[in-house]
Structures are given as C-alpha cells and as structure tokens.
C-alpha cells in the first residue's frame, strides 16, 4: 500500500518537473529572441501621436484612379488563375510521386525534398528570380505562384492519397488492371473531393499572394500598391488596400461556396 503511494507521488513530482522545464525552456527562447527581434514595446506608446497622424493620412481614401486599380486587380486575379491552374496540373503527378503508398522510397523521398524546396522559398523570392529570366510583368508572377503552389499542393495531395482506404485499390488490382488504372479507378475517386477543396483553398491564398508578388515587379495590383506607398500617396494606398480586401473577401466567399458543393 505504502509502496503504491510513493509510486504515485514520484509520478506526480516527475510531471511537475517536466512542466517547470517546459515553461523555463519557452521563456528562455523568448528572452533569447528579444534582442534579435529588436523588441521595443514602449515605442508603441511613445510614438502613438505619430501613428495617429499617419493613420489620419489614409482617410478619406482617394478612388480617383479606380479604373486603373480595378484593371490591375483583374490582372492579379488572372495571375492567380494561371498560377493555380498550372500548379494543380503539376501537383497531380508530383503528389502521387510523393505518396508512400503509391511509389517506392527511391521516388517519393527525392520528390518530397524537391517539393519541400519549392514550398520553403517564398513566392516573392521566386518572382524576383523569374523577373530576371522572363522580364518584368505578370508572367513572372504566374511562374512564381506555379512553383510555390506546386510545393504546397503536392504535399496536401500526397497526404490525401496516403489516407485512402486501400481496399478499393485492391479491388481494381484484382481485375488485372495496370498501376495507372488502379490510380484512376481506385485512388482518384477517393481523394477527388479533398483535392478540389485544397485547390480552391490554394486559389484563395494565391489571389492574396498575387497581390504581393506584384510589389517586386511581377505585375498586377501589387505594382500599383508599391508605387503609391513609395510616393507617400496614403489616400490612394488606402483605396488600393480597400479594393484588395473587397476582392479577396469576394473570392473567399465564392470559393467557400464552391467547396461546399463539391463535398
């Protein structure tokens, strides 16, 4: 009896120690990063007046050039459409080749590392690289979104494939079908709703990203945004930001609606 009591006491004190260590570790990390991140919370209060002044400059928004903004917003939308479409097409083979229940480690390990690389590097960086290759403009933005989105979508596609029920695939295999036929008739029907949902979600994200890749010169509303910020035209900046917010919300609503239909 007394032995059992000492045992639970030991377990409890061990858990307390683990909690204390976890907290200590977390706090140590935060304080170590404090200087590197140049944290100056008091400045928020000291410079409050400046910020109030700065925010006042944004109002009222100036929609004088709204035609241009809308046109460029549409270009941004087109960049997102093509960047996502190309990414979906290349994510199907890349995703299947990253799935451990479809291919051997000799294929999925290198493919996963390649996808990691595509995902790790931001769209902005890819955009700057592609601008050197294909020149300023929307096409560089499309290429940047394509590469980065393939990295993300292929991983999501592969996760869906790895979670399938193997039995329908075996059912197709039992008829003497080839490996590709097993995928088309056994795997794809199971993952398609998820794949569509992921693709639409990435499309939403890409409309947001496409408005940013423009800032490095890859076309669309981002170019306009960069110019008005650089020119201290805050009323115009505010108008552009409002248009981006309205457009992105609209796309989010629409794609959420479509996603609900597909599941």
């Amino acid at each position, binding site marked *: 009896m007394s032995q059992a009591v000492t045992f639970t006491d030991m377990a409890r004190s061990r858990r307390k120690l683990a909690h204390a260590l976890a907290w200590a570790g977390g706090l140590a990390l935060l304080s170590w990063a404090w200087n590197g991140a140049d944290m100056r919370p008091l400045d928020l209060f000291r410079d409050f007046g400046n910020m109030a002044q700065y925010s006042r400059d944004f109002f009222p928004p100036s929609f004088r050039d709204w035609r241009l903004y809308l046109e460029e917003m549409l270009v941004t939308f087109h960049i997102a459409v093509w960047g996502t479409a190309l990414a979906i097409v290349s994510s199907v083979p890349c995703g299947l080749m990253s799935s451990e229940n479809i291919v051997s480690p000799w294929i999925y390990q290198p493919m996963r590392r390649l996808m990691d690389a595509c995902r790790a590097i931001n769209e902005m960086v890819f955009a700057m690289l592609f601008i050197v290759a294909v020149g300023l403009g929307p096409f560089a933005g499309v290429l940047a979104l394509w590469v980065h989105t393939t990295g993300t979508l292929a991983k999501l596609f592969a996760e869906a494939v790895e979670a399938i029920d193997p*039995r*329908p695939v*075996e*059912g*197709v*295999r*039992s*008829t*003497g*079908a*080839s490996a*590709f*036929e097993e995928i*088309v*008739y*056994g795997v794809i*029907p*199971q993952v*398609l*709703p998820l794949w569509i949902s992921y693709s639409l979600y990435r499309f939403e994200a890409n409309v947001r990203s496409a408005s940013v890749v423009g800032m490095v010169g890859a076309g669309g509303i981002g170019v306009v945004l960069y110019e008005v910020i650089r020119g201290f035209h805050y009323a115009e900046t505010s108008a552009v930001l409002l248009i981006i917010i309205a457009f992105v919300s609209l796309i989010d609503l629409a794609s959420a609606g479509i996603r609900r239909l597909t599941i």
Partner: protein
Amino acid sequence: MPPAISVTGLSKTFNGKWALNDINLNIAQGEFVALIGASGSGKSTLLRHISGFLAADQDCPSLITVLGRPVQRQGRIDREVRAVRAGIGFVFQQFNLAGRLPLITNVLTGLLHRVPWWRSLPGWFTQREMAEGFSALARVGIADCAWQRTSTLSGGQQQRAAIARSLVQRVKIILADEPIASLDPESARNVMEIISGINREQGVTVLVSLHQVEVALRYCLRTVALHHGRVVYDGLSRDLSPSLLRGLYGAAADEILDSNAAFVSAPVKPGLVPKVAEALG
C-alpha cells in the same frame, strides 16, 4: 487440362508466426470448393497468395499456378501476374468497390485488362462494353441501380456488383474471401445462389472461404478445412460431421458450427446433401 488452381509447398510467416504451413492444394476446373476454418486460420491469406497479392516465404520451394500459369514461385511474384489476375474474379468480404463512383463504373473496371490504356485512363468505354456491364448487372438483379453512387447501396447490392465485375471480366475462376460474412442472412443466401449459378451454368471454378460449415454443406461438394495455417481436412463436404469438426478444431469448432438461420431454414434443393444438413441442424 491444367488444374484451375495448384498450390505446392506454400508457407508464410508473419513476424515469425506461421500463417500458412506447407499448404498443398489442387482444384480441378469447374469445381466449387469451400475453404472453411475459424478466424485467423489462414483462409484469407491463402486466397491472397493465389491471386498474387501476397508473396510466400522465400526460403521454401513453393509454387502457385492458376490454369497452368505461374502466379508465384519461391516467394517471387511472376512478372506476368496481371495477365493471370485478369482470369480470376476476386470477391472480397468488404466488396472493395470505389464508393463515390457509379455502380456501372465499378463493374466496368472488370474489363480494364482488355481495353487499351488510351481508352481506359480517360474512361472511354464503347457502347458494346457498356452493354456488357449492364447485362452483367441485370444477371445479378441490380440493373436499375447502375447509375447510383455505389456507397448508397446496401451490402448485398454491392457484393452482387462485385460479382458482376467478375462476369464482365469473363473470368474462369472466382476466389471469394468470406463473401457473405458482412451480409444479412437473406442477402447472403442470394449471393451464394448467384455464385453457385455461375459455377453451374458457366463452369467457372469457385474457391470460396466461409465461416460457417452449413453454407459449405449446402453449396459445395468439396471442402478444404484450415486450422492454424494447415490443411486439416480435404474431402467431401458430406463427410464433415460435427464430431469430426470438434476433433479437428477442439473448442474453436463452435465458431464454425454456429448455425445460420437463413441457410438452415431454407428448403434444401435436390442434388445437395440433405442428410448431413439434418445431422448438423
């Protein structure tokens, strides 16, 4: 005429435990053979070796052939196994159909092995191929469900669709792995009647694993009994008395003798083995 199924010296271990231990089995073309045994006795494992889903242990000289063509030799699956599988219809306990596809598409997967890839991958089937799918569904009595999403159908309907897939596949052999274990008694009887009809009318060889010995008695002339991965009985079903089964299986015999009301109460057809059914009932 080569045997429909020939298994020699087949052994399989999973993590050092015997799943199959030196199985030797010959099934002639046109036979309807039951494979019985308690759960874990190796029935599924044996069937999955015959269609080449599993490879035997490599250190024993095993050989499995189907209609004279090798499926696997010494634990190595034959390169041409897909062509052999095309002649085998596999009926699974859980049907193994793609739930989101319409029933007819699942049935048409049976002809993938003889459709060129440029038509099979985009799913372009000819009028004649579609007609073959529909007539197979009509044969098993569910033609009106052809365009329904498979997951919306009952277990019995899905299992009949799986049999329709084998018909479209124009198989010579049906391997059925506990085809009625997940079905209600009425659907179970229906499925067994369809399989036995295909055996009688088309001469398709059938090896069916069953949980209950009454079903074996009713439909199969010959029964192979497995226990702990060994063949403990291979002979006429009618010679399988409860006392013999108790001798073979000990306490586990109750699991396979557990009576199934639908099969016991249904009228016995001529040509079957009524005496044994009575003895067991």
